[in-house]
């Protein structure tokens, strides 16, 4: 049995794909789908997110986006969602999912289902001032150089696509292939699919990894120790496994000393009866990026701050203010919407912003963490890489790149000894 530590979108996707491939798996997480996946906006936008020095991340994102339509369709089927209803734009009908107010205008049958709310209607990146416009043109040139399909639009063309945009919009870049999905619908579908397949999801905290203390496998990871107290006596003391996949997001650092740090993001969910936007809209306001993601049920997600605050998940006045201030610059009408929720999540950031996927270097332990801002986007690819697909992309994500390498120590700055970024001796700490 393979044990997946972490029940976020990455861990659940891996478990589901492995199970589909006929492999026995178990997931362990004290509260599945409640961490970064719960906060995430679900933008599947590798093209509009591209920036200098991040071409490898672009390659991963584009490859994973390509997988998303079939991933979503198969997931919807496995989870028992109504067939063919992936999004309102291709046949879905209206209705809020959680008893909210109002019904979207594009429905009509009165049988609400948005499936996973997966939509591939593109991302519109807009600019207001002359400076922003110049930056957008530079970005367009960079995208063209990379061979990415983007379309440069005038301000009026932008507003024809999205009439709720502020009239002062000067221009935009449309990445027509970019998509988005509702991560909460994805994780609940994954949990449903796992349940239908009979995959156990153990609700417990992993306090540390179990290592073989003797024999030929000495040092190898052979399972996990569970925090019994947190499980109320209902969980075993440990889970033994043939292999452990660590997909615990920011908590991976404490369990295996991998170079992952929490990058706090505050994100707001607004609600309206009528969707304000028909596609993802993003822009720069005072040099800070902001994005708005519309859901089929009238929810509008506004994100997100990026803060280096350790494990702090408090929602702050400044965070809320800045999100609303910036969102209002783009779409003045947001001030009329109901504030449904503000949460803070912890993105698992790595030094180079690329995920850590593959063998950890310790026998029995495989990593699938460090997805930073791209966990939802990269989940299908991550699951595929762990099944041996696309070895060229797997090389980009190999955890080996961060392990201390004595041979390269001399290339470091002579003024400071290079501390090993990968500390195998890290202590035990719960995840959750």
């Amino acid at each position: 049995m393979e044990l997946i530590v972490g029940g976020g979108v990455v861990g659940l996707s891996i478990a589901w794909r492995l199970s589909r491939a006929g492999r026995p798996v178990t997931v362990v997480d004290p509260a599945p789908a409640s961490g970064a996946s719960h906060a995430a906006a679900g933008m599947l936008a590798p093209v509009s997110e591209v920036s200098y020095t991040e071409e490898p991340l672009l390659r991963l994102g584009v490859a994973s986006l390509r997988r998303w339509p079939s991933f979503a369709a198969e997931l919807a089927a496995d989870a028992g969602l109504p067939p063919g209803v992936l999004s309102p734009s291709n046949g879905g009908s209206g209705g809020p999912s959680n008893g909210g107010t109002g019904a979207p205008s594009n429905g009509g049958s009165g049988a609400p289902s948005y499936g996973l709310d997966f939509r591939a209607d593109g991302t519109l990146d807009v600019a207001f001032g002359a400076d922003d416009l110049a930056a957008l043109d530079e970005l367009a040139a960079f995208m063209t150089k990379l061979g990415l399909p983007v379309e440069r639009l005038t301000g009026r063309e932008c507003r024809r696509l999205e009439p709720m945009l502020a009239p002062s919009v000067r221009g935009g870049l449309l990445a027509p292939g970019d998509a988005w999905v509702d991560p909460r619908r994805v994780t609940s579908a994954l949990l449903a699919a796992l349940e239908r397949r009979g995959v156990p999801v153990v609700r417990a905290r992993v306090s540390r990894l179990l290592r073989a203390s003797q024999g030929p496998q000495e040092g190898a990871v052979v399972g996990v120790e569970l925090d019994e107290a947190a499980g109320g006596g209902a969980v075993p003391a440990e889970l033994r496994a043939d292999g452990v996949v660590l997909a615990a997001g920011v908590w991976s650092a404490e369990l295996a000393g991998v170079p992952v740090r929490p990058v706090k993001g505050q994100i707001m969910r607004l609600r309206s009866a009528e969707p304000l936007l028909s596609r993802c809209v993003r822009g720069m306001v005072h040099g800070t990026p902001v994005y708005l993601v519309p859901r089929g049920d009238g929810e509008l997600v506004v994100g997100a701050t990026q803060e280096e605050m350790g494990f702090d998940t408090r929602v702050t006045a400044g965070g809320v203010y800045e999100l609303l201030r910036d969102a209002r610059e783009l779409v003045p009408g947001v001030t009329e919407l109901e504030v449904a929720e503000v949460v803070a999540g912890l993105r698992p950031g790595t030094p180079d912003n690329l995920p850590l996927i593959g063998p950890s270097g310790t026998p029995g332990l495989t990593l699938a963490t460090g997805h930073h801002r791209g966990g939802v986007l990269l989940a299908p690819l991550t699951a595929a890489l762990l099944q041996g697909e696309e070895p060229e992309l797997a090389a980009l994500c190999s955890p080996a790149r961060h392990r201390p390498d004595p041979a390269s120590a001399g290339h470091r700055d002579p003024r400071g000894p290079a501390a090993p970024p990968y500390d195998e001796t890290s202590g035990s700490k719960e995840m959750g």
Partner: protein
Amino acid sequence: MDDLIIAGEKFSSRLIMGTGGAPSLEVLDQALAASGTELTTVAMRRLDPSARGSVLDVLRRRGIKVLPNTAGCFTAGEAVLTARLAREALGTNWVKLEVIADERTLLPDPIETFDAAERLVADGFVVLPYIGDDPALARRLEQAGCAAVMPLGAPIGSGLGIRNPHNIELIVEAAGVPVILDAGIGTASDAALAMELGCDAVLLATAVTRAQRPDLMAAAMRSAVQAGRLARQAGRIPRRRYAEASSPMTP
């Protein structure tokens, strides 16, 4: 190149880096290495200094001195509070004092800055204030006990270079503390010009972190600061209206 001395502390690099705007910590790390910087500013708001794996770890690993800044503060009160929190968390009494007047221009507020500087100096801080290119204010801050003055070349992140070289020269002429050109640098020639004008050091971030190749631009800035310093020390020739033959008459 001669050492830069701020508040009795010696630095062999005259390039001070900021950390803002880097796409990833690894890119920042490479840029810092290429820049040769020994002093780097870090914004303390929205940063937990005790968190593992943060930008502070990158600086510690490279042995780069951290200069906490009060970026994002609008009042002297916030700036003083931020400086005290930074001192407690990082164990340094150095602070780059930055009190901005508005979000659009991010120009420094001279009155709040002066107010905060006085209070921080009285509290034992080594204060390096970010200011407009105002010679009178620079002199007053020096008199108030600041360890350096940091006039801007142009607004933060604008990359517009040095908009008023004459004022920078006036500040340099009158200053008894180091003058550090802060903000506005767009490319290497801007940094060289700052040093030719007599500045003691250059502080920059965006010009490197948002460049297409941050590590290359960092190396360019390092060379530019050195070149500008050497040119300043060498003494430039006077500008002439017409040509002056250099070869036949000289030995």
